[in-house]
């Protein structure tokens, strides 16, 4: 990674956070470049929010280092707070204030200069399409609108780095799309966006991704890199009736490392798809299933993540057995 100082918006070095004995974030190291849309992916409880909170100065790290906009996350928390925007996972504007009152409050707290206040407010109202609803109680807005307002309030003071923790969770696909348009717009203006998500299609929108699982960094790279090189396994797609039952049979066939349902199809992870295909067809047909297409496919991001996480689980399992 090109480590020219000033071009890295966020750096993490062995960053760690424990809650008692539990390690929520386990020595994560990575860099985010200026102006990049950086996706932070992981299943529930992986440690995404914990990491973001440490970066925003909301949680003290238990170990390791980190910088945001060149500022130390241990010693310069208050400085960091002036130069970042943050949208927490839970909606956190004041429901009992109107749209306008929320904007005024946050621009006051961020000390947006007087002469810029009106302009920033108009910008947020435009951006969030809330011009007509400026006097509406925020709590009454639909989810997607609230998220846009949250984003707007996080951007009032024109931060250089933006942290978004699952900004589109619980929002309909259309609103999600338009929210991402806003993220692109920010990035094109040079804002670094650090975003966590559950949605695979959103992961595809990111410039680079980190996959974390159980507090550990599992993979790091562009979506393309992830789909191309990261996976040792090949993916075999099997179309078959009663796929739910067939899944159990398929998983036992020799050479199948992993089996998962994708819609009505079964996806199998294997080292050698060509060799497996005929064997698999035979096994399933012997089991009385109607087998359609059996073909090797390029893995989707979801395949990659499932495969990486399963691999991690297997490794952990083996380690545990070894220890026992």
């Amino acid at each position, binding site marked *: 990674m090109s480590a020219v100082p000033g071009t890295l918006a966020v750096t993490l070095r062995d960053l760690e956070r424990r*809650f008692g004995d539990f390690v929520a974030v386990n020595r994560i190291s990575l860099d985010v470049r200026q102006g990049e849309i950086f996706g932070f992916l992981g299943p529930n409880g992986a440690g995404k929010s914990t990491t973001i*909170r440490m970066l*925003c*100065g*909301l*949680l*003290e790290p238990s170990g390791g280092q980190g910088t945001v906009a060149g500022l130390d996350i241990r010693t310069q*928390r*208050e400085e960091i*707070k*002036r130069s*970042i925007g*943050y949208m*927490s996972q*839970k*909606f*956190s*504007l*004041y*429901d*009992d*204030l109107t749209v306008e*009152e929320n904007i*005024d*409050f*946050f621009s*006051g*707290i*961020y*000390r947006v200069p007087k002469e810029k206040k009106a302009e920033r407010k108009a910008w947020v109202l435009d951006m969030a399409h809330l011009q007509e609803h400026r006097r509406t109680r925020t709590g009454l807005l639909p989810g997607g609108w609230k998220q846009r307002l949250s984003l707007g*309030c996080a951007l009032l003071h024109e931060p250089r780095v933006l942290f978004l923790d699952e900004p589109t969770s619980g929002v309909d696909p259309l609103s999600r799309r338009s929210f991402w348009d806003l993220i692109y717009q920010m990035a094109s203006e040079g804002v670094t966006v650090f975003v966590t998500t559950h949605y695979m299609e959103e992961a595809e929108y990111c410039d680079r991704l980190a996959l974390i699982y159980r507090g550990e960094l599992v993979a790091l790279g562009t979506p393309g890199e992830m789909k191309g090189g990261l996976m040792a396994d090949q993916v075999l797609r099997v179309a078959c009736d009663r796929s739910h039952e067939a899944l159990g049979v398929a998983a036992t066939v020799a050479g199948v490392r992993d089996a998962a349902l994708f819609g009505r199809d079964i996806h199998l992870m294997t080292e050698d798809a060509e060799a497996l295909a005929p064997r698999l067809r035979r096994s399933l047909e012997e089991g009385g299933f109607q087998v359609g297409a059996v073909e090797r496919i390029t893995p989707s991001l979801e395949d990659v993540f499932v495969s990486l996480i399963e691999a991690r689980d297997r490794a952990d399992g083996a380690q545990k057995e070894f220890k026992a």
Partner: protein
Amino acid sequence: MLERLYHMLVKEFIQVLRNPRMRAVLFVVPVAQTIIIGYAVNTDVRHVPMAVYDLDRTPATRDLIARFEGSGCFDVVRRIASEPEIQKVLDSGEAKAVLRLNRGFAEALSGGGSAQAQFLLDGSDSNTASVALSYASRISADFNRSLLEQRFARTAGVRLDAEPVALASRAWFNANLDSRNYFVPGVLAMLVAVLSIILSSMSIVREREVGTMEQIMVTPIGRLEFILGKTIPFAAIGFVDVALIALISVFWFRVPMLGFPPVLFLGTGLYLLSTLGVGLFISTVSSTQQQAMMTAFFFMLPAFMLSGFVYPIANMPKIVQLLTYLNPLRYYLVIIRGVFLKGLGLEVLWPQMLALTALGTIMLLLAAGRFRKTMG
């Protein structure tokens, strides 16, 4: 600093005052409670229902009964005809007292001996019972005295000087007004404490529960700005309530306002400083609103009991007396009664003012110190 504080204040005022229900709780309820409690608090014992078991039925017994009735303290609600009935009327609560006059009462009197009367009391309400008992003693003492006078007049022609009983009787019968004057300012202190402690103890923890705290903590707002932003609006509301209740006390209940009202307001300001300090401290150490509510409650209960409002501090064990020095209510009660009823000014009340200032500052600083801009 000032700009952020200003925006905090605007936000807090909107949040507190926008909800009509909240407005009612803050301004209508205290007024209504003052009025209701003002009428209800009356520690004077009057019209105690009394039953009479008169076995003698002579002019002498009728005279004594008439004295009981005439005192205004007792109402004869029933005449009892048999022994077991005594138990019954007391158990059922129909009467709180029973006067039993034995056969031969008049005879004993005229014979110059000592006549036996029995006065039975329902002691379950010890306060009423002890007051009623002292009334009864006074009435019988009066009765004795007039008998003695008659007897002396008859036998020796000497006039007995009146005993100094008359002095005591004045205190009893004037008490009606006194107790209200004494209680209504105390009610003011209590209502303001309840309001300010509950409001402030919920305030920070509510933001934590709702999630808005996380957003606030990631802004560059200062701890003191935040804490002051939470204190000032509640203090302002507290002042309005004190003013309302004071006006009702003076103009409705005719509680005398002998002192200089600004002294009362200075005392109120310092008092609010300490109650809000306590509330905010509770809010910073609680993780849910429910927890904060419980903690506030467990603070307030002993604070009321050990303030001198209910029981005199002088009657408490030494250790508990020392504890009351930490109770802001204790000082405010002295200030408020001093200003209302005794016309005291700063020259007398300064130690209380000083104590409240110290308590308030310490609690607020503790709250600000406990308040962290980090989670977990």
